[in-house]
């Protein structure tokens, strides 16, 4: 995404447009144009609906679990295993089967959505906030500010995220680090994701701002005596909303995968909290005999990532139709 992002989103500030509608020429706002294009994209709509459903399921997970008559994801039932300790497969009472501890896989998949969405959305939001702010400053002021921020981006990008996560997970496993302030868990994953991904937002925003700051409306605002802050946040930033939304939507699934990868490597959330990555990791040794323990959280992860990607594609097409042609 990074290199050509400025070009991809170049038409995002196109303003009011004229289109034909029922034989008449009608004026439509960018929002109306976006919505008109987005409504035509059934796949993006289905993905959006899936994500909304997923968010609702995550928020109301206890209710959903109760509604389907499933046990709590933390209820262990050791009697649900065979003589060799093999867990019970899918059945009426446990539609997705149980794990070796006798915990219901369906309810754990439902609760696992909470971690994935929390990490994906909050991590991306923090990264967006940092990246957009620093990108705006670098692109608008240029000079030594741009140099410092750009070098900071280079340095940050050179830090391998998974290795950093493994290092923190290993060094801070039990007692934590920095007087217990850093402990493996959701907080650390969100921090790692925000730390590693703000750079992408900053680079894109910087590139766009370098272009926008030379445009007439910025010069006009400057001529009218507007302050730098007003120009950055009231004049330039609104023109960046579309690319930021699109990029954030595409970044969320990547961050969900990072959470899954870190949890798979044992750095993520601590048991018994349910997480898809952790479930997949735990299922690896027993996949031959208990496929359900890996397939369902795997499918949930895959569908969620796919939905966010498809929605991101749809938003990009709707916000800037030139890129889909």
């Amino acid at each position, binding site marked *: 995404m990074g290199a050509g992002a400025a070009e991809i989103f170049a038409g995002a500030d196109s303003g009011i447009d004229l289109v034909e509608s029922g034989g008449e020429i009608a004026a439509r706002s960018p929002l109306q144009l976006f919505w008109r294009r987005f409504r035509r994209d059934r796949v993006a709509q289905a993905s959006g609906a899936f994500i909304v459903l997923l968010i609702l399921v995550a928020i109301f997970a206890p209710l959903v679990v109760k509604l389907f008559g499933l046990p709590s994801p933390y209820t262990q039932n050791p009697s649900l295993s065979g003589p060799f300790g093999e867990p019970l497969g899918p059945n009426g009472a446990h539609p997705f089967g149980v794990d070796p501890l006798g915990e219901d896989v369906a309810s754990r998949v439902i609760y696992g959505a909470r971690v994935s969405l929390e990490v994906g959305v909050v991590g991306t939001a923090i990264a967006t906030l940092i990246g957009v702010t620093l990108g705006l400053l670098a692109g608008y002021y240029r000079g030594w500010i741009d140099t410092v921020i750009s070098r900071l981006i280079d340095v940050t990008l050179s830090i391998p995220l998974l290795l950093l996560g493994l290092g923190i997970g290993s060094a801070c496993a039990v007692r934590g680090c920095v007087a217990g302030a850093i402990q493996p868990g959701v907080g650390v994953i969100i921090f790692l994701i925000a730390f590693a991904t703000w750079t992408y937002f900053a680079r894109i925003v910087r590139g766009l701002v370098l272009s926008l700051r030379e445009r007439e409306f910025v010069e006009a605002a400057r001529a009218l005596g507007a302050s730098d802050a007003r120009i950055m946040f009231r004049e330039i930033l609104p023109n960046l909303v579309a690319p930021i939304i699109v990029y954030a939507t595409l970044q969320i699934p990547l961050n969900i995968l990072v959470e899954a990868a870190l949890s798979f490597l044992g750095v993520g959330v601590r048991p018994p909290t349910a997480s898809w990555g952790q479930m997949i990791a735990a299922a690896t040794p027993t996949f031959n005999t208990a496929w359900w323990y890996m397939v369902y959280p795997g499918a949930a992860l895959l569908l969620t990532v*796919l939905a966010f990607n498809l929605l991101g594609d749809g938003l990009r097409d709707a916000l800037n139709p030139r890129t889909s042609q």
Partner: protein
Amino acid sequence: MRALRTILLVAFVAAVMTTLAACGSSSSSSSSGTSSSGGSSLPAGVKNPVDESLTGGKKGGVLNEVQAEDFEHLDPGQAYFQLDYQITNSTQRSLYSYEPNTFSQTTPDLAEGEPKISDGNKLITINIKKGVHFSPPVNREVTADDVVYAFDRVANPNVANPYYLGYLESIEGMKDAKGGPIPGVKATGKDTIQIKLTEPQAAIVVASMVLPWTAPVPKDYAAKYDAKKPSEYGNYQVASGPYMMKNNSEGKVLGIGYQPGKSLTLVRNPNWNASTDFRPAYLDQINIAIGGDANVIGRQVLEGSDMVQSDAPAAPIVKLAVQQHPSQLTISAGGGAGDRYVAVNNSDGPFKNVNLRKALWAATDREALNRLRGGKTVADVMTHFLWNGIAGFEESGGFPGPKVDYNESPTGDMKVAEKYMKLAGYPSGKYTGSETVQVVGDSSAPANNVAEAVNSTLQKLGFKTKLNLVEHTVMYSKYCGVVSEKIDVCPNVGWVPDFGDPQAVLDVPFNGNLIVKNGTNSNWGLVNHPKINAAMEAAAKVVGEKARGEAWAKIDEELVAEAVAIPYQWAKEAYIESKNVNGINDYWNSGTFNYAFTSLK
């Protein structure tokens, strides 16, 4: 582009549905007949090491052995792992050894006969056999000086033997030895060794002579390797047993007969004299392949030929073997198979309170913990701390164990647990203290599941817990048994005795006098009860198997009365072989294969 995305979505959904349909639902139940073996049950048709016939094997052939894990230390002075022992047992001749089917009766190996114990259990005299020769490039006959050097080097920091002081501390000068001559160990003739003790502890010193550190080491050849830190003798070792690691003319083994992480090759020792040894040594060569997926390895062994697997097969393979290949499966119950228990901190934190320990014992579903590790086929519910095949086991309660209410229900009894919570000062029957219980477990399966189950039990008792799962070796080296870490519960610890003596089972894990403040301890619960410590010190001096059994059985009962840990598994180790292999397994070494007795059909 949209069409592509639609196809992608549909294809994905179809793939998921197809996968689910193809996999089908699994049955959770299966049955197999069982036969009883000393109170522990084994599935029908499965072999037991104690019943194996040790004679009549076919001479010749090459055995291919596969194992997922690598060896740890192959130097006989440092080896301390069952896979390592599998090698040292066929390449080295310690003073005494066990035949494969016993864990109590030792057989003189390099020693000519039983040791002579005199001076009130403070002097041991041993004669060694004549006609035993080292393998190339040393070739010469083994003398008493070579055994004396083995004693010297066990205390050499470069050799880094991890256990010698636990058993040999009473040898005169051993405590202060650093690799040089030990005043209490002398060759009084070409074939005679004399060992002087400062305390009357001959029993435990002699018992430990089955370990590979007593194998002879030629000082004239090995000293230059032992001078290096760490010692390189393991990479250039010579053999005294029927087999040797393949080496070059300089005796170098590393990179030739042993490729770490890849392979190890044992060939016949050309200088081995069969008339001096009780081992038949049927096979001509043993090729060991290291690494691989346990499931794949298991299938190769069961369906292939000339193969054995030396580490425990995966649970699905055990199930397959029980149901379809029972005659190719050996299960070793008791003896050297070891145990597993939940260590609770007796010295610090909430579990200093004996009633809280009893409450946790009562609440723990020990059958469930065992099911997480493969079920009854590979585990018996542990009810006390000595186990089957060790002197004192029957005296301290046998399989049912001591009759105390918190030990009665193997599936856990919350009412009894509540009783002890109240006795501990929590009238509601739930823990209401402010402390958070720190639980540190092993992150690998199935231990991680056991840790989670124990964590859940603690929460049922009202404890606020913090569960951390770390890598197996990190758990042992950094947290469990490290005094300064103050870990409250370690749910994944276990013990395999070094030899078949009750002291070897109970002393190291539960004797508070052995706790070191700075460093790691194998007393993971930091058990330190003066009365029990004193009883152990006294029992260490008792001589005779029966008397020692009785003395240590009383200590076992005390350990249960103090609920020093939550025992849950007497392990039963499973091993598989190909159909044309007559595998002989060492009951004393967790049931691993004995290459010097195994043959091809």
